């Protein structure tokens, strides 16, 4: 144990190395958990993964650079449609198709992120919220303008069958979990792999010079500018990075839902993402992860609970948003810093869990 400790010490003191170690361990745990879960739970984990990726991006934007976006649902829509169109063209049968589709989704969202981020950088506070809100309202409606986007009924998303995956992946999964990979577990593994990679990238970014600039811009834009930071550039970069996360999340969502339709990307989606970020604890990636978990599990839990309490299906469906709202209100009342923020005040010394900066000391 002592030798392990001394072995770990140099690794754990370098942020990148520390993030990688944590990420690797997290991924192995995730794989084991996914591999031993039922197909139903696997779909929930996959859902949690893409929500967490989007929420992670939003955490970075809101928590670090201080821009509030109500339009991330729209960015997820852009990513979902981009990925779907690629998968449709390529047939979506191989792993390569999947990665090409996700890369295109990220790239398209990067472009959209710059286009939206540039005017947004001139705005602040409620004005950015307003501008991005219009995005959330308008973008999904575009699907009705062009036939290629499938209108209200949306587009079906082809996903590779497990048997079409490369043999080495099938073997690897078998080796770790003793369960054959299928479509559900494949999407869950893929989601968590990308989630871990995204979070490592985001955690490093926030620890880097770029992240420090963002924090400076957030906390006091005048002193940041005096210190030679280009405010606009810092904000646009933050918006773009965050948009890329939303694009990746959208692409994954398309594959999981197997349908891309405007109805999935209502303003409610943007608000729920924000809720996840607030719920978990603004500014912390762990918080985003926990918020996403609540998002993926709570509605089903509430419906099941309602039904087992003897409510009719209609009543159970109606009770779900109520439970969701109550949980959100309780967290905000009892733990204003979010779940992670409040835990952190107990474990003030923790550094391993706070991959992404400290919670805001100064609220703006």
């Amino acid at each position: 144990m002592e030798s392990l400790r001394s072995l770990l010490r140099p690794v754990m003191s370098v942020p990148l190395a520390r993030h990688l170690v944590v990420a690797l361990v997290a991924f192995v745990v995730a794989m084991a958990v996914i591999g031993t879960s039922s197909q139903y739970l696997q779909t929930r984990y996959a859902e949690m993964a893409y929500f967490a990726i989007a929420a992670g991006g939003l955490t970075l934007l809101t928590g670090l650079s201080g821009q509030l976006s109500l339009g991330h649902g729209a960015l997820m829509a852009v990513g979902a449609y981009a990925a779907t169109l690629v998968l449709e063209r390529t047939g979506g049968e191989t792993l390569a198709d999947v990665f090409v589709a996700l890369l295109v989704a990220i790239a398209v969202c990067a472009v959209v992120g710059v286009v939206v981020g540039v005017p947004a950088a001139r705005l602040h506070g409620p004005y950015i919220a307003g501008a991005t809100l219009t995005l959330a309202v308008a973008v999904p409606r575009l699907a009705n303008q062009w036939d290629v986007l499938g209108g209200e009924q949306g587009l079906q998303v082809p996903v590779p069958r497990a048997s079409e995956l490369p043999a080495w992946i099938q073997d690897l999964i078998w080796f770790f979990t003793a369960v054959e990979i299928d479509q559900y577990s494949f999407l869950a593994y893929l989601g968590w792999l990308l989630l871990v990679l995204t979070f490592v990238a985001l955690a490093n970014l926030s620890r880097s010079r770029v992240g420090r600039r963002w924090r400076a811009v957030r906390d006091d834009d005048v002193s940041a500018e005096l210190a030679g930071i280009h405010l606009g550039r810092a904000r646009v970069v933050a918006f773009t990075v965050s948009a890329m996360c939303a694009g990746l999340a959208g692409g994954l969502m398309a594959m999981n839902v197997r349908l891309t339709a405007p109805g999935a990307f209502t303003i409610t989606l943007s608000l729920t993402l924000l809720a996840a970020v607030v719920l978990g604890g603004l500014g912390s990636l762990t918080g985003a992860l926990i918020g996403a978990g609540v998002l993926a599990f709570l509605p089903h839990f509430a419906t099941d609970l309602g039904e087992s309490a003897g409510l009719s299906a209609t009543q159970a469906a109606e009770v779900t948003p109520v439970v969701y709202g109550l949980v959100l209100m309780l967290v905000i009342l009892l733990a204003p810093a979010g779940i992670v923020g409040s835990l952190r005040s107990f474990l003030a010394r923790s550094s391993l869990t706070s991959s992404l900066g400290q919670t805001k000391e100064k609220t703006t």
Partner: protein
Amino acid sequence: MRNTARRAVQVVCVLTTASLLAACGAGKERPSEDGTAVGVTDTTIKVGAHFPLTGPAAPGYSEIPSGHQAFYEYVNDAGGVHGREIEMVVKDDAYNPTNTSAVTNDMILQDEIFAMVSGLGTPTHRAVVQRLNDDGIPDLFVSSGSLQWGDDPAASPMTFGWQPDYEVEGKVIGQYVKENMPDAKVGLFLQDDDFGEDGEKGARQFLDAQIVDVQKYTPGGSTDFSPQMSSFKSKGVDLVIGFNTPSYTALSQIAAQGVGFKSKWFYSNVGSDPALVGGLLASMTKGKIPAEQGVKLMDGMMTTEYIPGVDAPDDEWVKLWQKVWDSYSKKGTEKLTNYRIYGMSQAYTFVQALQANGKDLTRESIVETIEKEGASFEGPGLAPFRFSEDSHMGISGVSVVEIKNGASEPLTPVLVTDIGDAPIEEDDSAASDAPPSSGLPE
């Protein structure tokens, strides 16, 4: 700091080891292969369905599953089908295709249903047809008249329609208008998806020259139809044919009154329930149009019919539905409605298929049974089913009716046809079917 890091690593190591150990014994339970299918035991059959229980499409449609459940309870209390009781899981999709996909996933993986029975809606059900067929799950009697449930059994071998498809309905409406109102300037009011598209295709076979304007709407989008009604008005439309859901019947009526557009109206069956539309008009105008007056507003409107409804209380089928509803409705206060009758009529067909299938029930056998024997199923439908190996289309015809005092009066006999250029013929052979005295399909 280092202390915490070490502890975290230790915890993670323990967790990993534990999970990996658990994984070794995993060998997930697979569906048994001994002749019975997932969702079927010696004493139960579990089926699922997605319905809009909340949201804009919920009025009316959310009542359909209660009709199903009442009839299944009636059957279960009479001993079930081949000794098996039917259990139905209903999940809310709020008429949003993305939700449909999610709840269908849950029903397949969590509830482990044997079959999807009567999932509702064209855009919504379209989202899951591929999925159900890929997984080999019977997808029976979809609550929608879109062609895609039955016109290509090779592509969707597990999926069956139930009600007359919108093309057949459009054809009958088109022919009726052409013969009886040859000078009418026709405006089409369409839901902007396969529902409107299929209806338009049927109607255009006869009315291409008479149609002067087409207006579409997106469900869940705008609720103000003044621009559409103004357009009808300016183009001189004097007959509107609507392929729309009930909420949009009410909204189009409100908008037409608002812009002073007067016309004759012909709503396809889906959007024409007088009681529901009357109630919707009352709630949407906050009582400015009271429900009774709303029902009266529907007077003189034309529509189509393919099963007897609440306006025919002396019909033998309606008597049966009333009896079932009176004994099995959850709350005695809720009335029998056309939507509950629709649900019970579908449930009747499903029970009939299970009966015909016999004791050995698998996902493949139920499909085979419906293909072989479905065309001869007797039920409340006014026209026969078209089920065969080459077609999974449902009821083959409708009759045109006019609404008077909230009830329908027939304008034509039952007119039967098929998709494409199949001729329209009179055929009321199925209209005379009477329910067996037990009320259970034999």
